[in-house]
């Protein structure tokens, strides 16, 4: 996926939500996106995944090349992604690959693998409508993974998850990259981005303000804040081990 000088504005918006963005996302990588509210992180995902302006309306200028049509997106609001047609979690997860016309055996195999990857096999026979928000989020991610996307776009995918579930989801992203998927994940959770992404884009005012390895572009984890407030010189350590290593004892 590559963007070259892309600017995008939502319908009726006075100012563009993305401004002159150029970047390339390679297969087999995890790229993080972060920024303040309104900086354009979610819009970047929609544009990078080809969902805007196709589903949102609006105007896009510049050049966008997406080298696959196997693209999936995960939102922070799982109930908006349910089919509404499935009465069990297994049927929900199988819906995507079945809709793609895969043979029955492949659908079932992909479904079971995705349920296992997200640790929700025990929910397979439950009605999705009876699940908690966190359980539902894992089911939605499983339903997306079952379609084996080549470009996976996730917008704050752990917002509903407990810490163990969030850790498990973020640990899965590099594994998906190893299988060849290009992963683009947006979140305000700098701690998990620092642990997961090999590259992070920091958005400001619709532009990519910084682009590089987490240690080079992030400075707002809690540990970094502690280091800054305690007089540590920049660049600030992002995690506990890095902070401890900077203290002279």
């Amino acid at each position, binding site marked *: 996926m590559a963007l070259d000088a892309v600017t995008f504005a939502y319908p009726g918006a006075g100012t563009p939500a993305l401004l002159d963005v150029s970047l390339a996302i390679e297969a087999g990588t995890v790229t993080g996106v972060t920024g303040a509210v309104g900086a354009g992180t979610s819009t970047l995902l929609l544009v990078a995944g080809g969902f805007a302006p196709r589903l949102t309306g609006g105007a896009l200028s510049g050049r966008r090349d997406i080298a696959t049509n196997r693209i999936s997106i995960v939102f922070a609001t799982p109930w908006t992604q349910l089919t509404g047609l499935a009465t069990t979690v297994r049927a929900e997860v199988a819906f995507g690959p079945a809709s793609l016309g895969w043979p029955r055996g492949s659908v079932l195999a992909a479904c079971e693998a995705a349920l296992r990857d997200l640790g929700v096999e025990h929910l397979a026979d439950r009605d999705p409508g009876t699940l908690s928000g966190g359980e539902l989020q894992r089911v939605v991610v499983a339903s997306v993974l079952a379609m084996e996307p080549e470009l996976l776009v996730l917008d704050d995918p752990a*917002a509903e998850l407990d810490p163990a579930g969030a850790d498990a989801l973020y640990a899965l992203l590099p594994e998906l990259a190893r299988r060849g998927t290009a992963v683009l994940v947006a979140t305000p959770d700098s701690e998990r981005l620092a642990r997961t992404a090999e590259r992070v884009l920091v958005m400001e005012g619709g532009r990519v303000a910084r682009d590089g390895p987490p240690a080079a572009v992030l400075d707002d984890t809690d540990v970094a804040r502690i280091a800054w407030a305690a007089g540590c010189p920049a*660049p600030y350590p992002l995690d506990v081990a890095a*902070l401890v*290593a900077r203290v002279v004892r």
Partner: protein
Amino acid sequence: MSSAPGRGHAVRWEAVRFAYDGAEALRGVSLDVPAGTTLAILGPNGAGKTTLTRLLIGLLRPRAGRVSVGDWDVAAKRPDELAARVGYVFQHADQQLFERTVRRDVAFGPRRLGLGDGGVERALGELELLGAAESHPYDLPAPARKLVALAGVLAMEPGVLVLDEPTAGLDRAGRDRVIAALRRRSVEGVTVVVVSHDLAFVAEVAERIVVLREGVVVADAPAGRLLGDAAALAPLGLEPPPAAAVGAALGLPGAPIRVGECAAALGGVRWRGAGA
């Protein structure tokens, strides 16, 4: 954080049980929360956290047991009566926004309760929403809508404030505003109950922590003691927040759990230089 006597009410769940279509969500929970306490409820997905708090506003009714807010038995009150005492911020703000402008939305509750606009302006100000006050709530990004929902509840000046995952999706600046607003309410004696997975946020605001698992209370301890104790957190599937982890790794005095406390405890240390 010290709680002052003020407008808060005690909250009490007594042997409460609740089930969804036969699936037990709460299996006999008893908790007594004194007025003015800031309590955090933690636990894995599906533990019953949200169910427990929804009993406070009459949206759910227990199958057994009793829930009270101050001297009110919740079973004897309608949800609209309970709203005068208990302000509830849903996990998903869109469930509680319906007016045409942010200011009208935030003012809806206070007007219905016969309060003035003072609380409205205060809430808009402290959550830095004055610049968006005339915007339509749905023209704002989802995290900003979450702050609008919180402002609407703060403006009603409830004695009990219940927030379900108030920091999910917020950026650092928004999270800091929520922390500051809750600390002010705590000083004013408001009883605050937060459901959260964000332990760093919980460390900044909570005095007491209750951990639920499969509908029962599996831990109940002062925040400073539990969040600084990695051995106690591990079986609960939790890790100390970053400030507590830094404090433990360096053996800092006072066992800090908050960013500010940890930075203060680090005062005077010498740092290796840039790039070291």
